[in-house]
């Protein structure tokens, strides 16, 4: 290790410092999330309930339905904790991380700091197909399952990504491509509005509440699915760290180093759309997390080594979303804010600050 430069050592110790800080914040956020709400449950009681649950075999809570009823049957508090707050906050953490990694991958792909699932119209595409399913498919099936919603959102995301990729064959300027993505997003919004014309009142209400984005109504089923998809995608993204690092020098250099550009770009776009589709399916479109958090992470780490940035961005996104959800849930209780409202309020200023600073640096 002696031959490592001071700078490398510094960035690695910075990374561990940041991870410890983020983990502490995450733990704090989790506890806050569990014990605050319409019914305040003291932290001590939360811990003893969790301990009881662990002893009762809650470690397989995520895999077996009957354990859940066993645990939640004990008391009202434990019902609130295990069937409402816990899945919700876990979902917020998982999806928040997913969004920020998706944003990081898209920013790498487009070589543009404002690329993100929301900006690129991926969310709009998902919304279009979800609205189609909600409004029309509901007439033929009794109930829309999470699996259907995920599939709808995923199909919508991939549709947009596919269109953008088609254009990318002809348009080589990444900023241009980004603009095309944004425009395609607008077209999707128009189509969604068109669908809404034929919707019933109830559908409109459902769709509106969906498109505001929210972690409420999360259940263990959602958590299982989201955790599965996001952790696998995130691991895959981390395994791409090496080509991502080379790609930072531009396509030409990456190619000359032996990166299979076509495959790599396909992987980037596939993973980022998988992650953002997953988020959109479970929580609706959530804006600005994907743009703001990777940037915050990089400033925190003061490096852009992807092997360090990807895990840290995931953690940072989880923390960001947990606190945003806490605010959404408690700031104007009993009324609940849409998660998108809170993330925009905190995320947008970060983005503005970032753009201004980049400008300054370039001058």
């Amino acid at each position: 290790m002696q031959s490592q430069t001071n700078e490398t050592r510094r960035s690695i110790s910075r990374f561990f410092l940041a991870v410890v800080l983020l983990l502490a914040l995450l733990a704090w956020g989790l506890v806050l999330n569990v014990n605050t709400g319409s019914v305040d449950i003291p932290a001590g009681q939360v811990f003893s309930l969790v301990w009881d649950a662990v002893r009762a075999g809650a470690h397989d809570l995520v895999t077996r339905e009957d354990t859940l009823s066993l645990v939640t049957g004990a008391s009202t508090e434990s019902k609130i904790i295990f069937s409402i707050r816990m899945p919700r906050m876990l979902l917020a953490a998982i999806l928040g991380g997913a969004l920020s990694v998706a944003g990081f991958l898209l920013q790498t792909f487009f070589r543009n700091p404002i690329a993100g699932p929301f900006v690129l119209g991926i969310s709009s595409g998902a919304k279009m197909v979800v609205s189609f399913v909600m409004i029309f498919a509901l007439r033929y099936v009794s109930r829309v399952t999470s699996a259907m919603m995920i599939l709808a959102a995923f199909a919508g995301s991939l549709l947009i990504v596919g269109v953008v990729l088609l254009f990318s064959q002809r348009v080589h300027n990444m900023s241009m491509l980004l603009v095309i993505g944004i425009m395609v997003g607008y077209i999707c919004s128009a189509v969604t509005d068109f669908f809404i014309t034929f919707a019933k009142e109830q559908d409109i209400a459902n769709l509106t509440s969906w498109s505001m984005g929210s972690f409420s109504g999360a259940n263990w089923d959602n958590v299982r699915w989201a955790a599965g998809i996001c952790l696998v995608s995130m691991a895959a993204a981390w395994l791409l760290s090496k080509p991502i690092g080379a790609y930072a020098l531009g396509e030409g250099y990456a190619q000359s180093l032996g990166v299979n550009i076509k495959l790599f770009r396909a992987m980037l776009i596939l993973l980022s759309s998988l992650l953002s589709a997953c988020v959109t399916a479970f929580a609706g479109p959530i804006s600005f997390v994907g743009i703001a958090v990777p940037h915050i992470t990089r400033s925190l780490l003061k490096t852009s080594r992807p092997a360090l940035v990807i895990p840290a961005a995931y953690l940072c996104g989880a923390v960001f979303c947990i606190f945003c959800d806490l605010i959404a849930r408690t700031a104007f209780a009993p009324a609940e804010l849409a998660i998108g409202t809170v993330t925009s309020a905190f995320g947008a200023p970060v983005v503005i600050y970032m753009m201004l600073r980049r400008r300054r640096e370039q001058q």
Partner: protein
Amino acid sequence: MAYFQTEKLAVGYRGNVLIHDIDIQIEKGKILTLIGPNGAGKSTILRSITRHLAKLGGAVYIESQDIHRWTPKQLARRLAVVLTERIRPELMTCGEVVATGRYPYTNALGRLTEKDRAVVRESLRRVHALELEDQDFSTLSDGQRQRIMLARAICQEPEIIVLDEPTAYLDIRHKIELLDILREMAHEKGITVIMSLHEIDLATKISDYLICVKGDTIAAFGPPEDILAGDAIDKLYDIEHGSYDLLFGSVELGRPVGEPEVFVVAGAGFGADCFRALQKRQTPFAAGVLFDNDVDCRIARELSTRVISAPAFEPMGEEAYRDAAAALVKCRTVIDAGTPVGTLNAVNGRLLALAKEKNIPVYGGWRAWAEKLEEQRHGTRCQPDV
């Protein structure tokens, strides 16, 4: 078979052949430079050699192996590039930028081993940039950036480095430094260098081989001294107004048109400044009598309307005097560039005497002439319209 070879290589974009039948053979450790006008296709050829562009025909061989059959990784271990695109990585130190060159050698996660780190440092040392290792790449000057990009290529431990206009944006000192490093790499480590340059003077001095790229095939390929004779450069770049002197590596702008107004008595390099000063003021002039191997003679041939020259190492003869005198008396002004008059060029002394005799003003050096010219122009402007 030569170490690096192309055979009937055809290059272009989207199936449209731009340049075809490119045949190059060079030995290991040589420097090959592509020269030619803007848009001639130098980059297209280089990008086809590096496989950034699909070739449209023919083949490229390294040690008799067709490089288009290699995997990207195999190619990356033998051939490295320095491209024209300017990279803007965020929050990357120079060390990290250089370390990306280890890509073809590291494991799936890109972990750098002790050896990799040693190579990174060695590469930085080669380009004299060891002290920049921990510095953020975005804070560098153009010259430093280019050196780091070269270190990045060296770090790939290639046998061939391909550089697309590596000296663009660099000032003269950094150009020289960069080319010096390339020369050293080629000489000491046997690295073959293929690049494009805009600076012909530098290209002829650093290269073992030149390729002139013009039109739909390469105009010439060979050692610089063989292919660049006479006005080859003027033809390659279609220079009609102005000229390029290969021996001096100097550029002369277009010669003033019209009948000579000034006669310059020069020689032995005293006249060069004077000729250029006259060109700058667009004053047509004649120069004489100059020995035909004189520096002044070379420049006067590019800039003056009329040059009266005489064979070198012989006393200038009567014929030269008669020609010069005839030209001189038609001029309104004579400038004495200050060339000493001795036995061999005694004729020039007689020319100056003739000017005095004919009452033609003689200026000692071009500055005196230029001052007078300014004065006159100033004077005319002040005169009231009548």
